[in-house]
């Protein structure tokens, strides 16, 4: 395989890692007003992701940096093109991140309530906007090449908010919400586990509908492409996994439900990536203006170096992250939350 293609899949895998892992953090954050009936509940919900949300979010930072190193043109065009959308995502991530640490450090209920609001909105906004962004990448964007090299995005924030883009956002929102609810039921015991499961059934059903329409629409948009069958295949796996997750959740098999949702997120994203390939950004103005994987990539030397670095670090990273999940494998219960904690 070409190094450029390899890095297309490595960056894709990192992004998938981000959405699978931070995805349930977002879902857990979204569930706060729905499942958190008192202070102990909310502490319990947040503690399910307490030790891991930071390392999950780090997948975004690493994916971003790898994208920069492997595809500078893509990084430059996409990040400057999605300027305001990224600004909103950044503010949401900032507020969510500090809130986990700050909500219990101040005095008074008002203080905690403010930061709980930040956690909720900081968990709703990023998956929604990321969904919009990736749907638009699949659909194509108004980009044109510049005279001295590079591409420039000629749209605005509103260009991104088209029906297909918004549906992508909604789908991502619902899937991560369901993913987070299943994670809570997997990580808690007692009443919280039951309530999370109940809500997961409802949200999961909505996610199946949104996901099916979105993936169907994606296939239709690329029906003339010779590689559409890969998109169809990935979409089918995602759809089956999503439905299987719903059934497993219904049957009380949380581990399987969680795995199903994770596979669904991974293959839905893979469907998007495969619909883009061999482009990174298809131009909606003129197909010949599109930015290809090869055209956006770094030099052979840089990609080679990066391949070695990834080869040595990623297995280690996966090992110590798996160890963390193993250390914190026990289910949490209300009884373990000290009296007065919030």
């Amino acid at each position: 395989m070409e190094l450029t293609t390899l890095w297309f899949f490595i960056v894709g895998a990192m992004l998938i890692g981000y959405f699978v892992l931070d995805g349930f953090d977002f879902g857990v954050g979204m569930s706060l007003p729905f499942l958190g009936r008192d202070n102990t509940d909310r502490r319990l919900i947040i503690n399910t992701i307490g030790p891991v949300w930071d390392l999950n979010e780090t997948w975004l930072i690493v994916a971003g940096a790898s994208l920069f190193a492997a595809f500078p043109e893509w990084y430059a065009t996409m990040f400057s093109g999605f300027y305001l959308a990224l600004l909103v995502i950044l503010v949401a991530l900032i507020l969510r991140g500090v809130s986990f640490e700050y909500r219990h450090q101040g005095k008074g209920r008002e203080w905690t309530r403010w930061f709980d609001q930040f956690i909720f909105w900081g968990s709703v906004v990023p998956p929604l906007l990321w969904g919009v962004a990736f749907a638009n990448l699949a659909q194509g964007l108004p980009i044109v090449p510049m005279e001295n090299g590079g591409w420039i995005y000629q749209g605005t924030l509103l260009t991104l908010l088209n029906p297909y883009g918004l549906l992508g956002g909604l789908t991502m929102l619902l899937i991560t919400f369901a993913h987070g609810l299943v994670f809570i039921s997997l990580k808690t015991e007692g009443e919280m586990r039951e309530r999370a499961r109940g809500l997961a059934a409802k949200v999961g059903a909505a996610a199946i509908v949104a996901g099916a329409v979105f993936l169907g629409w994606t296939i239709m948009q690329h029906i003339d492409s010779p590689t559409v069958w890969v998109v169809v295949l990935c979409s089918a796996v995602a759809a089956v996994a999503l439905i299987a997750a719903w059934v497993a959740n219904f049957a009380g098999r949380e581990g399987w439900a969680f795995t199903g949702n994770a596979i669904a997120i991974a293959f839905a994203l893979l469907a998007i990536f495969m619909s883009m390939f061999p482009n990174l950004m298809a131009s909606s103005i003129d197909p010949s203006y599109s930015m290809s994987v090869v055209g956006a990539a770094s030099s052979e030397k840089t990609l080679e170096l990066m391949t070695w670095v990834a080869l040595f670090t990623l297995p280690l990273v996966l090992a110590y992250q798996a160890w963390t999940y193993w250390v914190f494998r026990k289910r949490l219960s209300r009884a373990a939350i000290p009296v007065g904690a919030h």
Partner: protein
Amino acid sequence: MGRATFVLERYMNEFLDPLTLSRWQFGLTTLYHFIFVPLTIGMCLLVAILQTAWVKTGKMKYLRLTRLFGKIFLINFAMGVVTGIVQEFQFGMNWSNYSRFVGDIFGAPLAMEGLIAFFFEATFIGLWIFGWDKLPKKIHLMTIWFVWLGTVASAYFILAANAFMQNPDGFTINEERGRAELESIGAVLTNPVAVTQFPHTIFAAVMFAGVVIVSTAAWHLRRGQYLDEMRTALRFGAWTNIIAFMGVGLTGHSLGMVMTETQPMKMAAAEALYENASGADASFSVFSLGTPDGAHEIFSIRIPYLLSFLSNGTFDGSVEGIRDLQAEYTAQYCGADSLLTCPADGQFAPIIWVTYWAFRWMIGLGALAALVSVVGLWITRKNMDLPDWAWRVAIWTAPLPMLASLVGWVFTEMGRQPWIVFGVMTTEQGVSPGVPGWAVLVSLLVFTIVYGALAVVEFKLITKAAKEGPPEIALGADADGKPGEADHQQLATVY
């Protein structure tokens, strides 16, 4: 009427210049980020040392200090993490031309930072916070040391990336692709600027954390509370400062010599030196009053030979002045085919009053904080009955190393201007071509408001935690190195 509209329009265009706004935004967000980063690096080390002391001696005071400063460390850590994401995204958002031109080289250390350092740091911090009751004592101690290793590794990679901007090395220009490409990662990672900047930055970070400990201890000692813990903390913090300041000074000197070699204009700008000077004439002005362009000096206090020593390490060396360098650079970088390297105004010197004063404030503030520690250690060597004002001075030294770090970066980055990559690309060429000025204004305002509000919250939380003092901890028997069941409640609530 027509004229008024024209003036208004011109004014708006200047006000909404994406370049100026992007520079302000990058400066503000980076300086803000760099309030939290050094405290994270420094405090992590000191907390790890305190926790090691507890594990080795079993003395409760070390555990209580670990918990107190651990809490301050975590409040601060959160801010460092979230403001760091902005840093990475900004290169693409505001400086897309720069990113596409140098991404082939500049991206690699950033990706390595993520893969090697950030994952490590983020994973082990979670284990440290939540692992008190889940991991054996020594494994738990290892996690905080791993976090520190992660922060230090991250500092190295990002300083290597920064060093490329100060003194680009290990690259070639690919004319066909219109970009700089990596030639040797070894050269990028062993850039002399990175090699000297790294220990300078780490020592400064440790000093910052040491002063926070001194300040906290002084606050409690002034009130006569937690005497046992706080006496230990005061001496620990003060010794840390003194050692760290010596490190800062020595590495700062080698950094100055590297800078003279690689960016002579920056050294000349640090001294506002317009004409070449050597030997005794290469003097260092501690203070000067005059017109900012240096043409007329009204009054100054000067130390002869010192500039020569700072720049060359000898007393009879010579230092190039701004005028000669300006002529040299104009000939070198403003040829017919040098779009990327010739500034629009033809000016190769940075803003002199900024570099001149930032350089002095950096040294002065750091030295002042160290002086307080030296005097403090001396007058408390027998007993700690100090007059009230002495405690107050100790409490208020807390911000000094932070301010020294910040003006140090102002000097480093403003002194780099007009370059974004020295000799390769000017800052004005690096800005995103497709982002309108109003969008940058929006983001600048949003970041200012959000960061400002969070600064208030952060300051409140840290002072609150510091004033609360070390927590009461009722530990069960833990001689076996494994926390008992009783610890579970106590230790698990740290988060």
